[in-house]
């Protein structure tokens, strides 16, 4: 049985020689993962869709620069993270000139979970999601990337460093800073549960 890595490598070779169907296979294999990453990085569905498009567009442009001994998925994640960081930086600069959004009109994608049963739990669940979103938004772009890759994507710290182009120690410190900030932001709410 051919592993995903092997089939990616074969598809990259074919795509480099101009086979658009091979690139299509790569897009189809990885779109959902890149969307998930992009959504967690940007916190916004439309931005995540833009990042997905931009990631594959750049991957197509840079396909000749991909080293065959590398892992295609790691390489693609690196492009995805860079696209999301570009967008976040531009958005941050843009937002400096904008009025702050009302919380409820903000990135309104973290809606109530219909499975939450009681009204109290429903309200609490919405509040947790709102505060997690705000806490993530307060992280620097690099802290957020490192946290998303380690916490949500389950990458090792070494892999996080590879994707972000950082030494392992720098990736580790970014994760430490991110977790500390998340803790400061969320601990009061979590303590209220006890």
């Amino acid at each position, binding site marked *: 049985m051919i592993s995903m890595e092997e089939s990616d490598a074969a598809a990259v070779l074919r795509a480099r020689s101009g086979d658009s169907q091979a690139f299509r296979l790569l897009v189809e*294999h990885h779109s959902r993962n890149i969307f998930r990453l992009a959504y967690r990085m940007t916190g916004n569905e439309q931005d995540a869709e*833009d990042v997905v498009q*931009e990631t594959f*567009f750049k991957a197509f442009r840079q396909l000749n620069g991909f080293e065959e001994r590398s892992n295609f998925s790691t390489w693609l994640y690196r492009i995805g993270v860079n696209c999301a960081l570009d967008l976040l930086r531009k958005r941050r600069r843009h937002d400096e000139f904008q009025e702050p959004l009302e919380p409820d009109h903000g990135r309104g994608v973290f809606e109530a979970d219909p499975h939450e049963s009681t009204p109290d739990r429903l309200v609490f669940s919405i509040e947790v999601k709102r505060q997690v979103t705000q806490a993530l938004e307060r992280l620097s772009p690099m802290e957020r990337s490192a946290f998303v890759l380690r916490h949500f994507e389950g990458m090792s710290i070494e892999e996080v460093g590879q994707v972000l182009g950082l030494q392992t120690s720098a990736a580790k*410190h970014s994760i*430490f800073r991110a977790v500390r900030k998340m803790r400061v932001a969320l601990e009061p709410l979590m303590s209220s549960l006890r």
Partner: protein
Amino acid sequence: MKHLNEDQLILHYYGEAPDPAAIESHLFSCADCRAGFEGLRRVLAAANALQVPERRESYGSEVWQRLRPRLSERRRWDWKPTFHVSRWAWASLITAMLVAAFFLGRFWPRAEIPVAKLPPGQVRERILLASVADHLESSQRVLMEVVNASGNGSVDISQQQASAEDLVAANRLYRQSAERAGEAGMEGVLEELERILLEIAHSSSQLTSGELNEIRRRIDTQGILFKVRVIGDRVRERQKAAARELARRNL
């Protein structure tokens, strides 16, 4: 065993602590550390409340359908705006275009440009050359400060970190413009510079001598200071040439 610090607890939570058995054993016997770890676990579990909207099975095909026209468009024009322009800070876009114009300007057939249009372009070119040169000088300064930093035990590089963080954003813009203009040499140096700046910006602000030596080693082995200096000198040369050309035309 001493109390566990927060960094150790974080590594343990993610299964990356160097000696998990020792940590488990300490947590078993130390109520304070156990409470700290439980607090951390509660907070990180809450982060999982952030759910990602589901995508259909056919999502990959939908992405491909949207992407395909851009790929064939690129073959015809080799250029396409990224993201929706309406979402961009216009200032950034204009700056990027000006920087791209600066790099492309090197290859422009000057003799064919009407003389009346030259002065504004040359003024713009001089400004852009100056900003690229300033950026390279500032970057050199930060790298030199890190290379020469010293302290007892740990070294505070928080000021250099703040500078590096600012420089990364500008560097990214110049690098992307150099890439679009096909200036491979400039792009390569800016890419290496960006990695080092990122490394500095995202290290601990209090570096141990080992961590500082590691950054110094990377700066040295890549010869990045030398490369930035050479590129900076070339940009300054171009800046002077542009100034001379402008003075000549104004005579």
